[in-house]
């Protein structure tokens, strides 16, 4: 076990959640739940993005076009630098 310093307002919010969950709920349990929720949300976001990406990558010709656009974008950046 260790201690962490948090602003009073944060402690009060954590206490309010612990109170809602009933007697015996510790702040550690509240924090663990919040961290779990954060991880779940992050995983959902990553999955949502990977799903879109998988769809995007199905079209190999369009991916090749994106690579050509990227090469042009890089040329633009290099030209800016060279012009200074």
């Amino acid at each position, binding site marked *: 076990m260790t201690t962490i310093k948090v602003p009073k307002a944060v402690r009060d919010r954590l206490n309010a959640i612990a109170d809602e969950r009933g007697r015996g709920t510790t702040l550690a349990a509240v924090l663990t739940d919040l961290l779990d929720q954060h991880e779940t949300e992050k995983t959902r976001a990553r999955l949502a993005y990977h799903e879109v990406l998988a769809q*995007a990558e199905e*079209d190999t010709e369009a991916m090749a076009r994106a690579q050509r656009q990227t090469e042009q*974008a890089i040329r633009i950046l290099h030209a800016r630098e060279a012009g200074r």
Partner: protein
Amino acid sequence: MIPFGYVLDDTVLIELGRRDLALHRLIVSFDRAHVRVSVPVITLATAEAALSPDQRLVLRGLTDVLEHLSLEPVAAHTEAVRLAEVTARMEQPADMAAAHAVAVSQHLDWPVLTTDAGRWDTIKAHLPWRVELVEISDLG
């Protein structure tokens, strides 16, 4: 890693949230080619406000996954000052999504990547300096 890159504006972020596959291909292709992209958080917040929760999730996943994408916060006084300098010169009420993109573009000295250069016409007309834009259609 290329030492410079592009600042994404709200038009790009909104279309990424809306699952524009061509734009997703381009941005992931940037990332794989080590082209850096910067996302100003106020621009991101404005874009997210125009999106549904599911669309926001895509955008959050993208900002989390891409290796060469960085979020630009307004966390320190210097960043607030840079933003204020741009905002003060804009037509009021200021377009904060554009203001933060301009502030980050000037600070990093990177151009703004947009899907619609016309979105910037009014902004450019009021700012005393050049806003460097690259429209995605210019990339071929």
